[in-house]
């Protein structure tokens, strides 16, 4: 169980910084095709912003309830990634061959570009949820009680 931080400086700065971190994470995620970055780093940054909100405002704050809801989409990232692969198979090609995505009005290279973006979103969702889930597992109060009681 993580309690909210006492200091008003930390609270105010956190309230200000968390949206900035989230916007930066989204920028890294969607700019990964044009510069350094990508799904993995963007997902970690998004997950870290949620960890920051839990560390600053505690487990029970209203902001952290939203973070707890994020845990329910565990596995959706994998579903997006494998689903894109499945869509490629439905389109008549190999698994994860984005050229067979059935989207009218797009040439092959643009389909591949779209496929890369979709799978990056999948990776980002998966990584962000996993990071938050691991932090929640590590900070659960039961661990400490278990280690004391043997």
């Amino acid at each position: 169980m993580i309690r909210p931080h006492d200091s008003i400086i930390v609270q105010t700065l956190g309230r200000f910084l968390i949206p900035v971190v989230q916007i930066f994470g989204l920028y890294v995620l969607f700019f990964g095709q044009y510069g350094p970055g990508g799904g993995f780093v963007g997902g970690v940054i998004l997950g870290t912003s949620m960890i920051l909100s839990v560390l600053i405002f505690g487990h029970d704050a209203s902001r952290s309830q939203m973070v707890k809801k994020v845990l329910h989409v565990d596995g959706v990232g994998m579903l997006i990634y494998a689903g894109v692969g499945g869509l490629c198979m439905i389109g008549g090609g190999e698994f994860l061959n984005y050229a067979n995505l059935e989207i009218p009005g797009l040439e092959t290279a643009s389909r591949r570009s779209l496929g890369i973006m979709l799978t990056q979103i999948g990776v980002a969702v998966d990584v962000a949820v996993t990071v938050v889930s691991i932090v929640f597992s590590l900070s659960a109060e039961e661990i400490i009680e278990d280690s004391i009681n043997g």
Partner: protein
Amino acid sequence: MIVSYEIPLLLLVLVTAGGAILVKDLMSSVLLLGSYSFFLSLVWAWLGAVDVAFVEAVVGAGLATVLFLLTLFGTNPKDTRLRRPPPSLATLIIFPLFGVLLLYAASDLPQYGDPNSPASVHISPTYLEQSYQDNHTPNVVTSVLMDYRSLDTMVETVVIFAAGIACALLLRRHT
């Protein structure tokens, strides 16, 4: 080439890595490990591997430090102070020998940036030349990771997912 900042950077990497091993307190060790990751990410950026540097800075210096600290907070305070036994004689003999062997092997490595090295004649030129026509993605690293080697990346994602599930199963017993 004028060596200005590479030598201090490598020295900092060595010093923080050694400090993380030698320091007595686990908390200091974790923080030293975080700074080690940060300096290592600077080394990656200097070598031109910007994507790797980004991952190292975000995951190594940021996330891993947070995870280590959370683990330490869940640990009994007397367990975080270390009494290290002195290294055994076999360690003192074998590890320097292993290091010398690695240095000997490193003399056979191709020069850094050599266009005739095996890594840059096999399939990398094809990727570099064809990537933009194939998938309109200027960043070749992303294009290789997400398109040419997409199945590998999917299995990596499965590994991350499995890690999260394993942590939840092992650590969250009562909820």
